[in-house]
């Protein structure tokens, strides 16, 4: 782990002002930001751990908890919102049994809502592990969850 952290910091020539992108890369590597990793960043970048913690808790992009195998991001940008994303959000929470921003206990699903993804023409948009699913609706979101193995998702067979 130490080695990987050092390597990432090296890519930014150890420049402290790159703390945010460094943490983003580190998070991508480790799936989330565990304590020992944060300590390693602090040590190798010579930034106090309190500052690292401040930054990590300030920006929404960072997670101190492990993320699920499937990462679901529902766009809640204005364009998606006016096209009914709210109803889909409710459906996601009902089926997954978690709130926005959480991960299921079995570490299968992480679900969050995000601001505009820049694909407003396709709105509402649901992103599953980086893959965009456009023109989302309640039935389609149920179907996707079911396909990913979420039990209890009833499906509209006709669709």
């Amino acid at each position, binding site marked *: 782990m130490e080695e990987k952290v050092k390597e990432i910091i090296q890519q930014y020539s150890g420049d402290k002002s790159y703390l945010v992108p460094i943490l983003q890369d580190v998070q991508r590597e480790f799936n989330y930001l565990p304590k020992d990793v944060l300590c390693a960043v602090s040590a190798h970048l010579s930034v106090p751990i309190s500052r690292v913690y401040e930054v990590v808790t300030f920006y929404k992009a960072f997670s101190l908890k492990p993320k699920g195998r499937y990462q679901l991001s529902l766009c809640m940008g204005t364009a998606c919102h006016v096209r009914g994303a709210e109803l889909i959000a409710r459906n996601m929470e009902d089926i997954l049994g978690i709130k926005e921003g959480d991960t299921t206990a079995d570490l299968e699903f992480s679900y969050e809502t995000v601001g505009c993804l820049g694909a407003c023409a396709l709105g509402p948009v649901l992103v599953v592990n980086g893959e965009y699913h456009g023109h989302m609706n309640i039935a389609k979101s149920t179907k996707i969850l079911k396909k990913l193995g979420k039990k209890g998702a009833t499906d509209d*067979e006709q669709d």
Partner: protein
Amino acid sequence: MTSKIKSFNELKSVQKRLKAGRDPKKPGITVCVGTGCLAYGTKKLVENFREELSKRDLADRIDFRTSGCHGFCERGPMVVLSPEKIFYQRVGLADAGEIIDKTLLKGEIIDRLLYVDPATGEKVVHEDDVPFYKKQSRLVFGLNFQVDPESIEDYLAIGGYGALGKALTGMKPEEIIQEIIKANLRGRGGGGFPAGWKWDATRKAQGEPKYIVCNADEGDPGAYMDRSLLEGNPHLVLEGMVIGAYAIGSSQGYIYVRNEYPLAVKNIHIAIRQAREAGLLGENILGSGFSFDVKVNRGGGAFVCGESSALFASLEGRAGEPRAKYIHATDRGLYDKPTNLNNVETWANVPFIIERGADWFAGIGTAGSKGTKIFSLVGKINNTGLVEVPMGTTLREIVFEIGGGIPDGRKFKAIQTGGPSGGCIPEQYLDLPVDFDELTKIGSMMGSGGLIVMDDRNCMVNVAKYFTNFLVNESCGKCVPCREGIRRMRDILADITEGKGREGDVELLEKISTGILDGALCALGNSAPNPVLSTIRYFRDEYAAHIKEKRCPAGVCRDLITYSVDAEKCTGCMVCVKVCPTGAASGERKKVHVIDQAKCTKCGACRESCKFDSIIVR
């Protein structure tokens, strides 16, 4: 392109050579690979084209190009065939071979891929004749179609970096600033502050080094023009920045870009590397003795980081909290040094002004707002996409002529401009010419250019709650009026939408707004009440219906509505019975279905799936 270009003359000959290499009559295929189109799976289509071309041994005879966003995202994947500019939309991923064989080789038009003008029912063959494009003047954005964002050669071939050459060899820094002032270029990032004055102030400020920064944080949810510019034509933005740096006297620039925009990040990195190799960035640019370089920094996903002082804090690797503005960034910004911050689109306008002159630029637009503006036209609109029009174009032209009106024959209700700091504009102002000043007059603002269209099924109280909630989450928490005030407003709005609204709530909202407007530290707070105030101003009745009658006229607020079946329209098709997750919808085939109110959770699944529009929500 690895050799350095050492002078303006050499640049001109490189441009000429590259231009000559691009035969305008040569058949070509351009596929849009902006984020919108990629989301349709366009990557596969590109692979298919490459494969089919090489299968037929055509790779040399056909110019195949991927380009940035064309703006008409609604109709992706999109393919344009040159030289005739035949426009194919909603292209299937497997259509590549057929397009090559029929259209490219035999000149036959494939009917099913043509755009049908919904107004006339006629098929449109050429890109320029599509109504969506016809009414626009795509000055800044138009170059997107002509270049592959990963190719500096493409950009040079259309005269790219010519403005930089002109500026560096023929103009003094002060002259450039005067030109920008004369053009009256106003900031495209929201405030509309004159760019030239800001440049002038930074140039004259005490302190070294001086920084210039490009704001590509694009926090407005529902706006994506900055992304499309950076993604689709990164060299244009870069060229604008180098000119600005020379004028201001800066040797280090930054681009602060949202991490949610991976393609933009990638393309700008490629562009920077290419520009360095070509001697257009770095030491001694074009042999002029002027040196300037650019770093890219990715944001962490916080709306407030689009605000200048928060952005600087974030660039320095700290939490993005704003500071009070008694000191201007032009005096003490990034690392407490004089800093000039401009938006992506602002920078992208600079090369045009230098190239064609301030008078030409000032000839476009209205008295106080010059040039064009790119808008992202989204929401309940037929033609979703990016639209570039001269300042002063009316909302009606944008919504109905370019945007093609409201889908499903529904009624226009409001258009929201200015993002979370803006307001909702009702139908009575549709003929308003859109510019910085007019929008402010009616309680909204230009913002970065998001235009979100709403129809009669959008609840204005809910929309106000949506924005307020967004701002509650995005408030950095540093100052009390913003942190506590917006939260209280959100709670009151939530009560109203849940049927717990009380007499006097609207007045209370107005009162809290005044406090926040006066007391907040930064522009996030002191524009936060705008969505609420503008909806109260224009849709007061709707607030009253929620509070007094416990009714949501648009049928949105869950606690105030019921779902029922329209016996006249229901055909007994059983679809709602199947999709209902709680068993509230029941009935037999070919008989009118019913919804059991005790079981109904108002999830909306039945209404969405009913093909006969027979679910009534009241």
